């Protein structure tokens, strides 16, 4: 028979102050841990959406992003030479979408407009909806004759002035009024942080005749590398990247940032482990006689060892639960929205940090492991208690 759970549970409350302090340490670490994991998960979710292997982003040679690329209509027309482009089954047209990419500064909702974000504005034609398969208008979409825009769901949530019916001023002097007529989703990907308008109207608003970039969809089973090579060749002279590569390069800065967060969290987690070990050593030392008693009435050393491991894990889980709750409360009441620059798009990619069950599970699993590891030495000491000597002690 193992030691009953209630024995350990009650023991945690014998030394209320020490238990409370240890639980708070663990809670602080787990709370931070959960936030960082949530942040990374939110970012990865957004980026993993934008990795359609059949989508190629076409930029001017030397361009590093849609922001600093320019493609003339002549250059764009050369793309029709590509051999592996998918065709629309209804019209037979090649799925190549000319796009214009610009940005406008809008106030952030989360700080009440104290700072402004660069929000991407993309001029598209109806072809864009065939190439960017995951973009789905919710309700109304842009018409080809009126100055209207549709807004990505994340952008609508995080930047102000983008509700349906609002008027958005675009153009070099902000002298063209575009009406927000609808929202669109993009499975939570980076495009959900964009504003889309009809390409010719946007071109005229900014006095442009060319495009910024193009996106195209490959035929089923086509090799993206071959198409990219063909594009780089003398006949076309444009540079292409798969969507996944494109966003990987745009998030390179964020990756460094993520690495820093991991190091910080790792160090703090180790500290929590030492803190647990410390508390468990004190617990074991304070209960030497009690342990000897347990051994005398027939509990084996192994059972005592497992018992203290269990007690430590309970302690850790208690802290973990509190930490997750604190992180949830922080996200709920302080803020869960975040946006980041692409490395060279310079436009904001907005995302939401959420406490998903998976994050809670990962955090609790991490803290349980920390609890077990922290208890290894104290529990071994407990199991090795010299029964006779301990009982004789005063």
């Amino acid at each position, binding site marked *: 028979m193992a030691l009953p759970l209630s024995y350990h549970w009650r023991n945690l409350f014998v030394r209320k*102050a*020490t238990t409370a*302090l*240890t639980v*708070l*340490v663990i809670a*602080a*670490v787990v*709370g*931070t841990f959960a936030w960082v994991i949530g942040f990374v998960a939110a970012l990865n979710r957004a980026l993993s959406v934008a990795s359609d292997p059949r989508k190629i982003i076409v930029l*001017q*040679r*030397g*361009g*590093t992003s849609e*922001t*600093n690329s*320019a493609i003339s209509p002549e250059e764009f027309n050369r793309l029709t030479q590509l051999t592996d482009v998918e065709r629309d089954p209804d019209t037979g047209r090649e799925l190549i979408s000319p796009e214009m990419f*610009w*940005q*406008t*500064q809008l106030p*952030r909702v989360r700080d009440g407009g104290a*700072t402004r*974000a*660069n929000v991407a504005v993309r001029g598209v034609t109806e072809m864009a909806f065939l190439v960017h398969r995951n973009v789905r208008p919710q309700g109304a979409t842009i018409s080809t004759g009126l100055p209207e825009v549709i807004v990505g769901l994340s952008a609508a949530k995080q930047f102000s002035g983008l509700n349906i019916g609002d008027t958005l001023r675009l153009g*070099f*002097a*902000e*002298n063209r009024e575009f009406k927000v007529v609808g929202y669109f989703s993009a499975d939570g990907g980076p495009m959900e942080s964009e504003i889309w308008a009809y390409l010719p109207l946007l071109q005229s608003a900014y006095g442009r005749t060319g495009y910024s970039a193009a996106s195209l969809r490959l035929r089923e089973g086509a090799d993206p590398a071959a198409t990219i090579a063909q594009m780089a060749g003398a006949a076309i002279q444009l540079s292409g990247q798969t969507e996944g590569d494109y966003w990987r*390069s745009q998030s*390179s*800065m*964020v990756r*460094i*940032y993520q690495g*820093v*967060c991991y190091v*910080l969290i790792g*160090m*703090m987690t*180790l*500290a*929590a482990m*030492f*803190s647990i*070990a*410390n*508390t468990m*050593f*004190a617990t074991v*030392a304070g209960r030497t006689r009690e342990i000897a008693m347990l051994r005398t009435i027939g509990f084996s050393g192994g059972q005592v060892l497992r018992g203290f491991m269990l007690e430590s894990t309970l302690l850790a889980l208690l802290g973990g639960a509190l930490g997750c709750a604190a992180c949830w409360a922080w996200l709920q009441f302080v803020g869960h929205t*975040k946006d*980041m*620059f692409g*490395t*060279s798009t*310079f436009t*904001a990619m907005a995302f939401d940090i959420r406490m998903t069950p998976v994050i809670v599970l990962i955090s609790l699993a991490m803290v349980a492991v920390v609890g077990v590891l922290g208890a290894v030495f104290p529990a071994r000491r407990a199991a090795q208690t010299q029964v006779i000597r301990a009982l004789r002690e*005063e």
Partner: protein
Amino acid sequence: MTITYVLMQNLRRNPMRTLLTCLSFALPMGVFVAAISLIVAMVKLNALNAAQLRLAVQSRIALVNALPERMRAEIEALDPDKTRIRAVCGVRWFGGRVQNTPSVIQSLGADVDTFPLVFDEIGWTDAERESWAKDRQACVVGTNVAEQYGWKAGDRITLESSVPPNLALEFHVIKIVTTEGRTNSLYLRRDYFEESRRTAGFVTPGCNLFWLKCSDLAALRALQAEVDPRFANTPNETKTMDENAFMANFAQAAGDLPGLMRAIAMVVVFIVALVAGNTMMMSFRERTRELAVFKAIGFQGGRVFRIVLAESVILALVGALLGIVPTAAALLAFPLKRLGFLPLSSLEVSPIAIGVSIAIALLVGVVAGLLPAMQAYRLNTVAALRKIA
């Protein structure tokens, strides 16, 4: 029997606890010193920038919207006697990169005549001023950029612009800039850049930004209020900010790293305070009788108070040093400034940051030891001796 002796004995009595406490103190303090270094670096940079009395004038709509060159004269006309504006320098984003490398150098074209005046803090010698004025291909390079690519003064370099028309231009490095806060960028002459753009068919010259160097703070505040109304209702409405406000927009968009660091620093202080408090409580509880014996053999309350408090402070200090020294050494050995554009690159261990970390550790030690020390001070000798521990 000195206090020091008692202290050492106490710390040695439970070496495992002393070690674990020091370690669980050291790790968060290591994080703390890194976080506080970044904050200190940012504050210092802000102070440096503020002292330069510069205003940034950009398009109200977006930084990518270039403003026409003539606006420089129009801004200068706001102050015809030249009492408030020292100089105005237009800059245009070049975004150069070394061919076949992915990372874009923060590089900008600047007006040839006013650049040395507006950015005078980078320390110009007469010879450097002259080569900047005479050599069309001159460029001044921040030392971090120069180190990364192995450039030195006198080198000829070729950079490919990442903005249309993606010019590949040759430059002469005439100066390496070591002034703090200016070490991650490269400046070239805008006239050379614009001329090359014109050759490539891009005929409208322009600036993403005008820097105004003001003569004093009052002039800066006044001009900040004057520039935007001057261009209101024109096709090129402006937004005028001081240098720090301009930089803050970038910090937000790069994930608000300073904000995150502040939050982490606070969590860390919270953690170490709890760890220290926990240890002190445990060791006080174990030694209640012993402290009572001290008092019984004639130690004054004040002395017992000091013994307990000193133990807590020493633990905190040793723990903190164990964390701070390796982190500081690591950051000195592998400086993050190589990372370039990020706000992270300004992270450098400074004496102030180390001082702040040690001060915080001391404070935590004192606060954590205070309650047990007070209990020791007030300890009822007879009752404690009678109690069976």
